[in-house]
């Protein structure tokens, strides 16, 4: 176990030896049962390390984090991070989602108008560089897949539900289109990017829930 090659076994295992050393070590392994056995055990250690799984913490840490970020928000200039302390978590049913999507559409026209209105220098200073470029393409693909699935499954839903779903998808699509047109004019507009992100996410959620509902029917 203490021969000159023992301390090189990890490098060999990781493919980090030069060619000459690798050939020499392989020749040694052919004659040294002890090094050969150790190499097998080191390989087992590496395999176990790669197979380790993540575990949830025993305690929910969110309360402490929330307290920390709320304190952080209080330090910041008012308006820089809106909604930090007042947001709540919602779990919506399909009917609620449908209602929410209608409300979303009613809001969207005004929202886009607000985003496109002339802005002050101070407003522009508040903008960040978040853009939708990084996530819209995969979302489009996902939405297309979900819509295909819905087309296949909608016969399982009653006619009234299908009609409402289609109507709401159409108005969501119009809201998305409006946001995209507005973003073409003002790609760095934070509000528009977030508005589009939210609308797309709501569309995905709606499609997923309707598909799940159809699958259960």
């Amino acid at each position, binding site marked *: 176990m203490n021969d000159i090659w023992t301390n090189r076994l990890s490098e060999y295992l990781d493919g980090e030896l030069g060619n000459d050393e690798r050939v020499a070590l392989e020749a040694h392994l052919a004659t040294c049962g002890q090094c050969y056995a150790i190499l097998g055990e080191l390989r087992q250690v590496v395999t176990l390390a790669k197979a380790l799984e993540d575990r949830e*913490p025993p305690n929910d840490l969110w309360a402490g984090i929330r307290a920390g970020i709320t304190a952080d928000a209080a330090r910041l200039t008012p308006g820089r991070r809106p909604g930090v302390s007042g947001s709540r978590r919602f779990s919506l049913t399909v009917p609620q989602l449908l209602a929410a999507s209608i409300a979303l559409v009613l809001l969207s026209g005004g929202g886009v108008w607000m985003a496109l209105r002339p802005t002050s220098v101070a407003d522009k200073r508040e903008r960040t560089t978040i853009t939708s470029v990084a996530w819209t393409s995969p979302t489009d693909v996902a939405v297309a897949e979900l819509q295909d699935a819905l087309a296949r499954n909608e016969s399982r839903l009653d006619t009234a539900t299908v009609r409402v779903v289609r109507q709401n998808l159409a108005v969501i699509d119009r809201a998305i289109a409006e946001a995209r047109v507005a973003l073409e004019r003002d790609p760095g507009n934070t509000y528009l990017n977030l508005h589009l992100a939210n609308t797309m996410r709501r569309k995905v959620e709606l499609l997923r829930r309707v598909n799940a509902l159809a699958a259960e029917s």
Partner: protein
Amino acid sequence: MPRQVLEDTLTADSIAADTALAASGDATAFERLYRTHVARIHTLVRRMLDADEADDVTQDVFIRAWQKLSTFRGESAFGTWLHRLAVNVVLARRKSVGVERGRFIAADDPLDDVSSKPVTLELSMDFEEALARLPEGARQVFVLHDVEGYRHEEIARMLGVVPGTSKSQLHHARMALRRHLDR
């Protein structure tokens, strides 16, 4: 598109949207990010530091992530960015508390008092226990290289050592863990 690919795409998209929302101050979106990533971050922290520090340091990682979200440019996945932030927080903690570091496994086997069992379904838990017994320097190199997949050059930069030291620490860690498995 295969189902798993579709689900991965949806998950990645949802995370990207939540990241944008959280960057604008939406704490609810940030909570979703927390719930998606907390197991990975807490596990990383627990493996690299002592278990009793894991909760505090994990909370610190997420609070720092919240504070730094405006600097996230989406050049990498949010999870990758968060993971790197966690590694930096852990290494900064290591420096700030002035713990002994860079120590190789001494002549006394640090795993001597770890319970020994044959290879069973419980092996991974025993392995975690054995890992926690390693000296800090060897443990951190082992976690970063063999568990997290960093290269020696990256580890050396993070720890402020030369790559040869990282390789040597890794080998000593593996040998110690091997002896544990060998019992």
